[in-house]
């Protein structure tokens, strides 16, 4: 399948950059990358920070959280701690922002990288159900929220929006793809058990119209961003795999190769205390290619968890020098604790399971006639941060306007957090704690 695309003008590019964009896209398509048209916009760093604060969109609904993110990015830039090279959004056409102050080489690298992302957005299965006109949709959301602010007042809208955003990860990461494949419209969002708690609340919570509208907006945007979280390693890996191939395959001249290598290795450096998605991702695709696998099929079928499940073996873990680390209680320092490939792989899968979110299910509603929501955290070895859980429950109860119960575990002991709307009480549960249901890695 090839995507339809029309040649677009990228208005703000200099003629030189426009020429390069055209050439790089052509080389990319020659490599069988296939993507919607790409709009490149050339902006200065401050404007890119502003757009990055909005999650890549020039227009979002008003929220202080974006202002906070902007402040953080600006400070990071000012102090030279961080700098955004590239920003690309999943839309048709794909929109990518280039930072004016970057060198020509960096711009070429970013353009090639963006081609990789654009191909990934177009073909990875998890993106099939995403809104390809999100740029417009975000604009509509913005207009809708602004209208509500005019009618309801800033403080009311802001308070509810903050409550809704607090629960924006109570969703089912696999739901949009399931619906897309089954070609069904959501039948009834209102029936537990479900992981799509946001959807349930949109249907069933006793809300004013404007509040319901806000909750729908928050839900739509959360589902839009979720595939990017689930494919971060693959997406960056795929883009890096291709920018490297495109640039070293004739786009760069000999004098640029050393600078390219420097720039590329900076982005794909190993970091001891965490996984660099660029590095792990590119190595996964290189490994797959060595094994003779069809990388295009892999990039279509998988998410991070399932790709790692498919590819990671003893050779890969050794070659990539992956390890587990943890705190040594005796020396109080963080140490390498394990190099056994199976354990490393298990841990990787565990961290990535359920889109990296705590798996929280709505199991029942109103079983005791008090209108209560019964939630269950499927514990996978990682405890919830309880203080945050309390605060979040209070906000959830404010939306539901009824009591909430959440069962989870803390340090191996069963716990139930009971929220009556004003306070959260933590009860210990004797006997069997709720166990994980286990289906964690991605299904497809």
């Amino acid at each position, binding site marked *: 399948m090839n995507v339809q695309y029309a040649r677009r003008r990228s208005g703000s590019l200099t003629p030189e950059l426009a020429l390069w964009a055209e050439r790089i896209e052509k080389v990319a398509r020659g490599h069988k990358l296939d993507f919607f048209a790409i709009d490149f916009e050339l902006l200065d760093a401050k404007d890119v920070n502003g757009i990055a604060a909005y999650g890549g969109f020039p227009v979002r609904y008003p929220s202080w959280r974006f202002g906070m993110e902007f402040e953080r990015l600006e400070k990071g830039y000012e102090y030279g701690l961080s700098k955004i090279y590239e920003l690309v959004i999943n839309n048709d056409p794909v929109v990518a922002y280039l930072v004016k102050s970057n060198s020509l080489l960096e711009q070429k690298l970013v353009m090639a990288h963006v081609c990789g992302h654009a191909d990934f957005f177009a073909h990875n299965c998890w993106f099939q159900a995403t809104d390809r006109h999100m740029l417009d949709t975000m604009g509509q959301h913005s207009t809708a929220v602004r209208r509500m602010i005019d009618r309801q007042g800033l403080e009311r809208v802001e308070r509810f929006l903050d409550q809704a955003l607090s629960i924006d990860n109570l969703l089912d990461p696999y739901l949009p793809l399931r619906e897309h494949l089954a070609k069904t419209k959501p039948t009834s969002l209102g029936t537990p058990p479900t992981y799509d708690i946001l959807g349930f609340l949109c249907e069933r919570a006793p809300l004013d119209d404007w509040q319901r509208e806000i909750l729908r907006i928050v839900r739509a945007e959360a589902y839009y961003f979720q595939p990017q979280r689930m494919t971060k390693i693959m997406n960056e890996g795929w883009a890096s795999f291709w920018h490297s191939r495109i640039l070293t395959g004739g786009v760069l001249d000999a004098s640029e190769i050393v600078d390219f290598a420097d720039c590329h290795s900076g982005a794909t450096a190993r970091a001891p205390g*965490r996984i660099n998605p660029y590095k792990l991702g590119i190595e996964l695709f290189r490994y797959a290619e060595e094994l003779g696998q069809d990388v295009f099929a892999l990039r279509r079928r998988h998410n991070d968890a399932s790709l790692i499940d498919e590819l990671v073996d003893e050779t890969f873990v050794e070659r990539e020098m992956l*390890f587990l680390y943890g705190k040594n209680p005796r020396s109080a320092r963080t140490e390498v604790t394990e190099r056994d490939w199976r354990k490393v792989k298990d841990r990787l899968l565990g*961290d990535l399971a359920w889109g990296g979110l705590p798996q929280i299910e709505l199991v029942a509603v109103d079983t005791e006639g008090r209108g209560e929501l019964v939630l269950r955290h499927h514990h996978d070895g990682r405890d919830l941060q309880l203080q945050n859980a309390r605060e979040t429950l209070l906000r959830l109860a404010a939306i539901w306007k009824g009591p909430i119960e959440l069962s989870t575990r803390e340090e191996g002991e069963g716990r139930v957090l009971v929220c009556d709307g004003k306070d959260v009480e933590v009860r210990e549960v004797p006997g069997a704690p709720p166990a994980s249901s286990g289906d964690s890695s991605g299904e497809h």
Partner: protein
Amino acid sequence: MFRIEVDRARFREIVRGRIRQDLRKYLSNSELIARQGERAVSVPVPQIELPHFRFGENQKSGVGQGPGEKGDALGDQEGEAGGEGAAGDREGQHILEVEVEIEELAEMLGKELELPNIQPRGKRDVSTEGGRYNGVRRSGPDSLRHMRRTFKAALLRTISAGEWDPNDPRVVPNREDQRYRARKSSPVPDSSAVILHMMDVSGSMGREQKEIVRIEAFWIDTWLRSQYKNLEVVYIVHDAVAKVVDQEAFFHLRESGGTKISSAYELALKLIQEQYRPEDWNIYPFHYSDGDNWSARDTERCISLLKDELLPRVNQFCYGQVKSAYGSGQFKKDLDEALGSDERLVTSSVADRGDIAGAIRQFLGKGR
């Protein structure tokens, strides 16, 4: 980029509101002191992030990549590696630090404690040369000649002399008509002030007492800094003898031995006479002790020093008595008895951190 600026303004407003709400808390702990910069204080604002269900940090563990055998320590280099960031991949979990200008902090303090602005002392309105060429005068260098004013003067003279001929509108400026741009001096209120912080560091002043002094001093400095353009701070410590020290030593020095408060007052007087003459400076001495003095005779000496030498020279003299386990608190009583009617003297007593706000208000509430 207008929208994001609106969001940023809203964010800052919320943060300011949060700080204002917590100001009482900051008034009784030393959290802000270490964060003081030249012009701004960086205030930690906890809990501004929205809560979410998220994993705790109960295991500081994970998957890493790199060389090293089992048991090797991990390098502490968890900083940002790559630079590229795609949309929607951010995790925000950090206590936010917000820079608040000292002016702004002072404003919050002023509102919270209802502090009046300081009225400069009458004779303080020393004229200072302003730097702008917005005046006109009759003599000056040609390079500063004001053509329009010169011709205007010439025109006036011509008309008043009856020599004006509309049919031959020639105006010839003569020497008297010349006008020149001039620097205009405008009176600028003199805005220099000096704070003399004096502290008793004898054996009875413990760690907690010094902490209280430290917090008081921080807020007093903050307020006065907002009131005067040029503020100097001098730190004096004393037990039986007094000396000038730097800020660090002021709060951490621990001496032992007796207490002769007059030694500090004498040193302050000497500084005022030699460096901070009252004609040029607004002077604010602050003295903190636990109220024990060596002898009644020394207290008498202090009172006469205050009455005859210090009080006439300063804007206001503040004595803050910090309660300690050993102090008798006698000194404040003596001062109040002898000089209580003099409004240039303000005394306060602080039993614990909760009283700090009240003491600051007493000190700064008169607007002197």
